[in-house]
């Protein structure tokens, strides 16, 4: 089945259908496969000419078209029109985006509403709709508190809340709720006392402070309550009396704690001893003198060359202006006696207080350079009194440094 044969068959069919050619004329053009081409053309033309025999009837076409359009419109009414890709994407984003946005909006609204409710409930008093929320929040705060001390502090806060509510109720003339609130106050005070007792087992000083705090709170309200009692009904005055009684108990408790735990002695002993030692050790290590004598011996050989740099880097010499002044004038005179006498009086007092750590390390390095000349003389015996002196003599360091080049060389010789 060659490609040429197929092309001959296709072109022959087209030419014959158009009416310009016949089977014989087409076959005559392709003598190589004339017989096979004739057979194929005859069958193909027979099928093509029979095409109309297999067409549907015009009645079916018309009725079928009506049914088809009717079905399409019914489907369109039942379901929305088919969406394009753009519409689908748009729909996807609108649905998918609105969901989280809506969720966030609802969440924010919930937070705002809940925050508003919580803040509003704090101002509520017994009989208000939000008062239950206020008391529930108090219980939650108490339940979530970890330490006994915090529990006691919260209990004191709640006692203050109850007393404030009593005053607010009296102002509004709601005496029925006043009696109940006074009863709650009494219970709240007892609960607080129990909690303070628990705290006292761990820390009596803290318990004393809490008891005093509660007593001060009740003391300020006690006079007000007593004044109210005179003009209030019996039932209310009875409740007020109970609160006054419990406040007296609080007062006694606070006094007992104060007796057993004096207020003055307690605070300083525990905290300060721990802090002071940490600081004081530093002055003691300052014994620059102890380090000074040790270093002079090794330094003459090696350190003189390296360490002279350090004194200039460190701020010590700059902090003590006095030394800097003396070198400028003294150099000419100092070599033997003058510097030691001047420096000991002033410098020693400064070094231990301000720069204790720096001075010991740097001064010794300098002193060896200075000391060489004294080594020739028995002057070291004079210096022992101002043992600190050598440390401060850092000032002279500058002047001797120039001389060190010569003096060390001299010392080894003897």
């Amino acid at each position: 089945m060659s490609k040429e044969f197929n092309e001959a068959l296709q072109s022959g069919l087209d030419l014959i259908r158009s009416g310009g050619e016949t089977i014989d004329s087409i076959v005559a053009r392709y003598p190589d496969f004339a017989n096979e081409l004739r057979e194929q053309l005859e069958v193909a033309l027979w099928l093509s000419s029979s095409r109309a025999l297999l067409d549907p009837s015009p009645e079916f076409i018309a009725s079928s078209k009506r049914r088809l359009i009717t079905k399409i419109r019914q489907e369109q009414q039942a379901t929305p029109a088919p969406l394009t890709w753009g519409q689908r994407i748009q729909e996807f984003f609108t649905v998918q985006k609105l969901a989280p946005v809506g969720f966030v909006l609802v969440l924010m609204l919930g937070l705002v509403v809940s925050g508003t409710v919580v803040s509003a409930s704090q101002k509520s008093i017994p009989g208000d709709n939000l008062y239950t929320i206020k008391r529930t929040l108090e219980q939650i705060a108490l339940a979530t508190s970890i330490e006994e001390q915090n529990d006691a502090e919260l209990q004191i806060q709640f006692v203050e809340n109850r007393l404030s509510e009593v005053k607010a109720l009296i102002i509004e003339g709601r005496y029925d709720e006043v009696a109940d609130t006074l009863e709650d106050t009494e219970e709240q005070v007892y609960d607080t006392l129990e909690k303070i007792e628990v705290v006292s087992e761990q820390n009596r000083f803290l318990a004393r402070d809490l008891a005093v705090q509660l007593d001060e709170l009740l003391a300020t309200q006690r006079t007000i309550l007593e004044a109210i009692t005179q003009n209030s009904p019996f039932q209310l005055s009875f409740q007020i009396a109970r609160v006054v009684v419990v406040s007296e108990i609080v007062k006694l408790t606070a006094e007992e704690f104060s007796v057993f735990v004096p207020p003055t002695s307690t605070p300083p002993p525990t905290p300060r001893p721990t802090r002071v030692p940490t600081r004081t050790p530093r002055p003691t290590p300052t014994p620059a003198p102890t380090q000074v004598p040790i270093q002079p011996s090794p330094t003459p050989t090696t350190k003189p060359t390296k360490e002279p740099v350090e004194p200039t880097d460190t701020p010590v010499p700059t902090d003590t202006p006095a030394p800097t002044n003396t070198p400028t004038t003294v150099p000419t005179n100092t070599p033997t006696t003058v510097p030691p006498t001047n420096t000991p009086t002033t410098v020693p007092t400064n070094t231990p207080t301000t720069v204790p750590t720096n001075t010991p390390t740097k001064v010794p390095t300098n002193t060896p350079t200075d000391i060489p000349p004294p080594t020739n003389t028995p002057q070291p015996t004079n210096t022992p009194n101002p043992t600190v002196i050598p440390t401060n003599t850092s000032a002279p360091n500058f002047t001797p440094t120039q001389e060190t080049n010569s003096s060390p060389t001299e010392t080894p010789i003897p």
Partner: protein
Amino acid sequence: MLQWHDLEDKQLIKLAKDGEAEAFGELYERHVNAVYRFLYARLDNSMDAEDFTEEVFLRAWNSVTNYRERGVPFLAFLLIIARNVLIDQYRKNGRSPHQVTIEDIQLKDTNPDPSEITNINLKRQEIRQALGQLRDDYQEVLVLRFLNDLSPNETAQVMKRSTGAVRVLQHRAIVALRKTMEEQHEQRI
């Protein structure tokens, strides 16, 4: 006023994608004959051909939004659907068209329709009987190529074969059909 007849297939398809049922009705009118011929040549009777023709166009309407021309004419798109409808039908009934016997055709197609008594109907019956003797792929390629006048390339798209394979298949199908017709002619004599 908009005249559907003046529009090309591309324009009608675009309107149909936008939900215009009348535009799709115009496409139906243009291609219903080819679809019907394809089905009728391979089914037992005209009633099934009519039902399946409507089924083909309903499926085409529901999937017209997915239609992209890309070298596939709308008629080829319809005939691919028609081929799938036939395959579904064969799977449902557990039989294929080449299993359709001449007896089946004669029994079922000798309906009381008076028009089929005429000579035209006899010729129609002759064609269908001849095609019914052929293999499925022979019937398909002959119907597509010579009854629906599709090009070898379009036929290859519908049949999901290469153009070369379609040419070879077409040649063998013609030879087989000629042989069948000769046998039928000898039987009549």
